[in-house]
Structures are given as C-alpha cells and as structure tokens.
C-alpha cells in the first residue's frame, strides 16, 4: 500500500508515543492542522493500516491479574488446496489465542496463548489444540518473565539522569 509522507509521519508519531496523545498534539508534531490530522487518521483506519491503538500493559504488576503466557510450537499436516491457512484459522478463532504465525524451520505454526493459570493453558493445549485433526504435535513453552515486549522494555529505570540545568 502506498502511503503519503504525512500519513507515514502520523503513523510514526503514533508508534513512538502513547495512544493517549491528543490529536491537536499529533497535528503540531507533524506540522498539520487538526482537521488534516483527523482526515489522515480516519483514512488510515479505513485502510486498516492503523489497526488498533495499543497499550502495552505489564499485567505481572497487577495483583490477581498476573496470568500466564505460553508459546506453543505446533506441527501440522497441511491440507491440499488450503495449505496451512485453514488450520491456522481454526486455531486463531479461540479467544485464548493472542497470536498465530506461520514459521519456517522446525515446526509450522507458532501460537501464543494467554490464560489465567498454567492449568488453563495446559487444558487448552491438550483439549483444544492437540485434538485438532491436522495437528501432529505441540511443544509448550511457558513465558517465565517478560523483559521486553513489542519494543517496550519492562522494569526499566527510565529516570532522567541529567542534571537539571546544563550548558
């Protein structure tokens, strides 16, 4: 998809700033009017380039919301005509599934699952995922700690280390 320079600039601003940044401020940063910025945002949403305003949340800090994330390597037998797409679709429709990627290498699909407990994830894998027709095998890796997620470093001391006034 070919985007204009300003559309790309607005995307870059959104990517590098929190989703809460007001439209007025985006407009100033990109040297646009507020109306122009709104038009660009609408257009980007309509084109599904701007898919979602995301927040990265470190749930491990929130009592009772810790949750469990697992990455599951799945080997499947691709079906004639639909290849991997059909089985991928059957997997990504489960609400527990956060992401599904088709991979090259030792296995075919990489599936990321989020559940409330280890038990819940284990049950999902054994009862839902493994029992799918074309799934040959699964290997489940539980995530023990998130250091960096989608470009954001967790647990980082980001205090400004500069002195308050300098030349």
């Amino acid at each position, binding site marked *: 998809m070919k985007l204009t320079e300003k559309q790309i600039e607005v995307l*870059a*601003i959104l990517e*590098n*700033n*929190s989703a809460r*940044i007001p439209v007025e*401020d985006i407009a*100033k*940063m*990109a*040297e646009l009017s507020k109306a122009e910025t709104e038009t660009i945002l609408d257009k980007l949403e309509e084109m599904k380039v701007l898919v979602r305003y995301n927040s990265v949340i470190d749930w491990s800090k929130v009592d009772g919301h810790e949750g469990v994330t697992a990455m599951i390597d799945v080997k499947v037998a691709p079906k004639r005509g639909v290849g991997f797409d059909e089985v991928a679709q059957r997997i990504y429709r489960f609400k527990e599934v956060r992401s599904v990627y088709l991979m090259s290498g030792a296995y075919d699909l990489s599936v990321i699952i989020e559940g409330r407990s280890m038990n819940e994830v284990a049950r999902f894998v054994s009862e839902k995922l493994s029992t799918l027709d074309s799934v040959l095998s699964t290997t489940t890796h539980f995530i023990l700690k998130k250091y960096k997620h989608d470009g954001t470093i967790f647990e980082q001391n980001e205090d*400004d280390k*500069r*002195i*308050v*006034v*300098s*030349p």
Partner: protein
Amino acid sequence: MNGTKSYLSKTVEELKPSGIRRFFDLAAGMEGVISLGVGEPDFITPWSVREAAILSLEQGYTSYTANAGLMELREEIAGYMQKGFGVSYSPRSEIIVTVGASQALDIALRAILDPGDEVIVVEPSFVSYVPLVSLAGGVPVQVQTLKENGFKILPEQLEKVITDRTKAIILCSPNNPTGTMLNGSELEAIAQIAEKYDLLVLSDEIYAELAYDGEYTSFATISGMKKRTILISGFSKGFAMTGWRLGFVCAPETISQAMLKIHQYAMMCAPTMAQFAALEALKTGRSDVEDMKKSYKRRRNYFVQSLNELGLTCHVPGGAFYAFPSIESTGLSSEEFAEKLLLEEKVAVVPGNIFGESGEGHVRCSYATSMELLQEAIKRIGHFLKRNQKA
C-alpha cells in the same frame, strides 16, 4: 595569606562565573522539576555504542592512544566528514580527537591567539566562547544579533567591529541557545568578510547532525574557506554522548599541528574507551542518529507552536534542540522569569541574558525531553502566564 596578595591570575579572577551555575544551584534539591534547562540529549547513548566501549574494556584497551587519537577513529572521522558534509581532511595531519568540542575550542583559540588579539563572538552564544577567548589571552568582541533577523548575523554587523587586531570569528550553526541555522548563502556572505579581512573562522558544528529544515552547510565547504576554517565538532549532541567527553577538530595542517602540540602537553590524548565508543558510533550509529533527529523535530514542531500559542513568540529554530522564545509579554527580565517559573511551576529554563546581552528578554528551553514532559511543561507555563502576563 596576609589578605592583600591574591594568588589567582588576573584573567581568572576577572572571569565571570557561568550564570548557569546559579540556576543549577537553585534547582538542585527541588523535587518534581521538569527540566527544559539541559543542553544535552535526553536519549541514552545507543546500546551498540555502549556495548563497544564495554568490549574495549574487556579486551584490555586501557592505555593511551596516539596523541591525535586512534588512527582508525581519525580515518572514520575523515570518511564521516567527507560523506556527510562534503569536506575532506587528512586523518594523519588535519584531524585531532579531543576531550569534547570544549577542549577543541580551547586548543584552537590557544593555538591562534597572541595577547590582545581580538575574536568576534556572535551572540547570543554558547557560554564558553567568551571566557575561553580570555583564557587564551585574547579579547572577546561580542556582536549582537537581533530577534527580528531570527538571530542571524548580518555581514555588515561583523564588518563594523573588525579592527587591525581581529584574528577570528566564532560561528555556531545550528546555534546554542537560539537554534538558528545559517544557510549556504548566509555563510557565503560571512566568508567574503573573512576573505576581505584575512580572518580565521572557528566553526562550531557540534549540532550539525541536528539540522531539521533544509540542507546543512559546513562552513569549510564554502569556496576558499577550508584554509581559513577550524571546524569543531563531536559526538555529544548528535550521538547522545555528552558524558563520554569526545569531540574532534579539523583544520589545515599548520594549525592542526600547532593545536596538537598543546593537546599533547595538556591532555596527552582523549579517553581510550570513549574513542572506541565513538568508532562504533560512526560505524553503526547513523540510524540511531536519524531516529533521534526525527523525534527531536516532531517535538520541536509541537513545542515551538505551543509556545507561540501561549504568547511566548518564538522563531522556528532550524536545528539543535533549543527554543528561544521572547518573554517580553510578561514584562519580567529573563532572570526573573526563569526564577519565578522554577519556584512557582517547577519548570527549569535558562535565562537568555546568560548567553550575552542580546539574549535578554528571552529564555532558552531545551525540547530534548519526552513528549509527555513537554506536554506537562506547556500546561505549567500556561498557568504561569495566566498569572504573569502584563496587563
């Protein structure tokens, strides 16, 4: 001491302490201050650069380098200046790696000045120029730029202050504190004066990487000027490496070799670990610099427009990371403004008069701060102005 004799040199005794010091002391110990008072990037040095320095330590590179710096680094600097700025210097005889642009300025002035020689300083200017000229035995001659001209120096202003003793002009583009950047034709006009009166030009290009609007022109690329130019630059600003204390200076061989004598006796060489870091910065840090620059530009656009909306009128700075708004609408002096704003709203800015008389009526705000903090700072300045606007 019997109380009458001073042990200090007259030059040092007469040196004014930096006005920045007072504001540093004032702000120190205050909690929750948003600092727009800093003359340095808010980015941490790119990790690949820090990692290279750590590796150099692990490998035991802890001894002196050649006086002029690691040959490999000087070669890389030569390539960087050639590719990035279109000016070629010999890594063997025309480039010296220094302890920041600060030391480069110092050895440049000491290498060229005899007692009483005059050096023209275009103000508002970086706080070090005037004292460094004095320390080198020279006489600083300040020329004031006007906000009506976007703080650009006009050739006729220069011509007015030139005397038989004038030896050099110090230029800084993009400028600290105004952010003003001079374009090719403006530099050309200054070059004609340098030619006419046979002057050297110390071109402080430390902010060259942070030029937002239009092409950046290095003074040395102006026709006939390379032989008159002492080009000062470094890694502090563009590469976010202020604490590493690493800069460099490029100049024709006779001047370079004179500077090298001073450097060799006074400093031996720049820190080795920092030189390895700089080498990595030049080899792989360019995309980091690009990213940082884009981010500064967006913040500049936001911050300068917001200041203007608040009534602190401000020209659009072409480079560096400073906005230099007029505070005349408040009727306060720049020192009063900065002090009150700090005490009442906990926003630190630097009063403009610190950078020379022509800076009075302005404050320097660094927008090298996160968007969140800039947004909050604008809010607080807005509150402050509601209370402190002249009727």
